[in-house]
Structure formats: C-alpha cells, structure tokens
C-alpha cells in the first residue's frame, strides 16, 4: 500500500513539475511587429499583403518543446494590401468575407519531427486551420526560438521569456472557399503564407 501511495505521489510530482515548466506565451503584440504575410501570383504583379492583428497563446516548455500546443489568431480585418480597390475586394464576401468571418485561426494540437538545437526547435505542427468558416487539418513546418529572460529588452520593467515562431506554408484558395470561381490565370490558386510572430511570458 505504501509503495502504491509513493508511486502515485511520485507520478503526481512529475506531472506537476511538467506543468510547472510549461509556460503560456501571449502573442498579442503591442509593438506591432508580429505579422502574417500573404502572396498570390497574378499577371500584372503579385498580390502582396500582410496582417498584423495577431493574438493567441501557446503553451511551450523549453525542456520539452515537442509538447507545444496553442492557438494563433489573425484578425481578418487587419489584412492589408496597398491598392485600395484590391483591399476592398479582399475584404468582400466573395473573398474573405471579413464581416462574417472575423478571425483566421490555426490551432496546433501536436508537434511531429521535433528537432531541438540549443534554443531553436524545428518541427511539423499538426493542427487545424480555420479560414472563412472552413476548417481543414493541416501540418505546417514551424521554427520555435526560445529567448530566455529577453522580455525585459522588449518591454522595459517586465521580466520573462520570449518565444519566436516562424512558419511558411501554402494553402489553396478553393479549399477555404476564397473566391473559388476566380480564374486561376488571373489570380493563382495557391496562397503563400509566412508567419513571423513573438509571444511573451511574463514572470
């Protein structure tokens, strides 16, 4: 009986230790550097734009990066392209329908092929991407960089750690109902996405 109790206590302490090590990083960025860049090929010039309305949180344990989970949210209305008419089209019901679908989300459920070298971890994040109300399972490559005790350099008088996430991947417009009728020789079917974001965990 004593042995069983000891085993349970030991297991509990390990679980507690594991939980204690995991930190929650908040990706709301007061500096406005966090951004998602998108690119679609088109005949005259590629449609390039970015979004900086990023939020979300990620649970990351520097001792066990493979256990990382979290959700990143992009405010659809923050998507910007330099041509005003193009932006109007992009936000319209035919394209992203900003009024009905206010958020684009990626929820990471697990990491695969995890490789850690120092503070840097590369992996494939398995999760779901929700865009314009359509949810699709996706696996995307991610690079996580853990910057211990660097939060105060970014936000004075606030101690803590930073987690930088970078990812580049491609999605198909029609998979998410983004103007599926648009001719592919006028606007490419593929959308290239690049995410460069940093989250903070204050201590």
């Amino acid at each position, binding site marked *: 009986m004593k042995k069983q109790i000891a085993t349970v206590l030991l297991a509990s302490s390990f679980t507690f230790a594991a939980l204690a090590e995991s930190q929650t990083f908040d990706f709301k960025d007061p500096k406005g550097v*966090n951004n998602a860049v998108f690119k679609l090929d088109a005949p005259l*010039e590629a449609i390039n734009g970015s979004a900086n309305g990023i939020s979300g949180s990620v649970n990351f344990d520097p001792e066990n990066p493979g256990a990382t989970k979290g959700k990143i949210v992009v405010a659809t209305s923050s998507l910007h392209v330099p041509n005003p008419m*193009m932006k109007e089209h992009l936000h319209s019901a035919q394209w992203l329908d900003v009024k009905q679908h206010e958020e684009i989300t990626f929820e990471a459920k697990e990491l695969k092929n995890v490789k850690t070298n120092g503070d840097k971890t590369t992996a494939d994040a398995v999760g779901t991407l929700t865009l314009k109300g359509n949810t699709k399972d996706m696996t995307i490559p991610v690079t996580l960089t853990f910057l211990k005790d660097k939060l105060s350099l970014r936000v004075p008088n606030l101690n803590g750690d930073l987690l*930088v996430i970078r990812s580049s991947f491609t999605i198909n417009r029609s998979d998410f109902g983004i103007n599926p009728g648009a001719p592919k020789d006028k606007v490419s079917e593929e959308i290239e996405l690049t995410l460069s974001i940093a989250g903070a965990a204050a201590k």
Partner: protein
Amino acid sequence: MRRILQILGAAIVLGAVVTWLALGANRGWTKTTVPVKIVDEVTGLEGETYKDGFVPGVDFLAGAVLTGGLLAGVSLLFSRRTKTKS
C-alpha cells in the same frame, strides 16, 4: 472650345506620364499606402507596417490616357472656328 478640350486632354496625359515617371514608374497597380519595414532587434523579427503614400501604377496611366482620349474625341464634336474677314 475644340482647341481648349484638345489642350486639356494632352495636358492630362502629359501630366499623368510625368507624375508616373517622377513617382517611380511603377509597372504594377496604383498604391495609396506604402510598406515600411520594421525590425525588432530583440527577436530578429521583420514586420511590415504601412504609411500613406501615393504610387501611381499602370491603371493610373490608363485612366489618364482614356480621359485625354475622351476629351479629344469630344472636341471633334465642336466645329472648327473659321475666321471670316468682314
């Protein structure tokens, strides 16, 4: 009136070409905001923000040429003034 419309049409086209060349001869679409790169030295992240700025593109040129052509066309509706000696 005919001459005025023709001069106005030519001035619009010429003005648009000069503006287009002066503002970078952008062969893409017209832009009303321009990207500004921002770098976070702590994380090494490079972000993009936009500031107001006008960069005319080929649609701006096409609009000017169309307007100039339209004015030149309309000018043909006015008869040429002939001076008569009295």
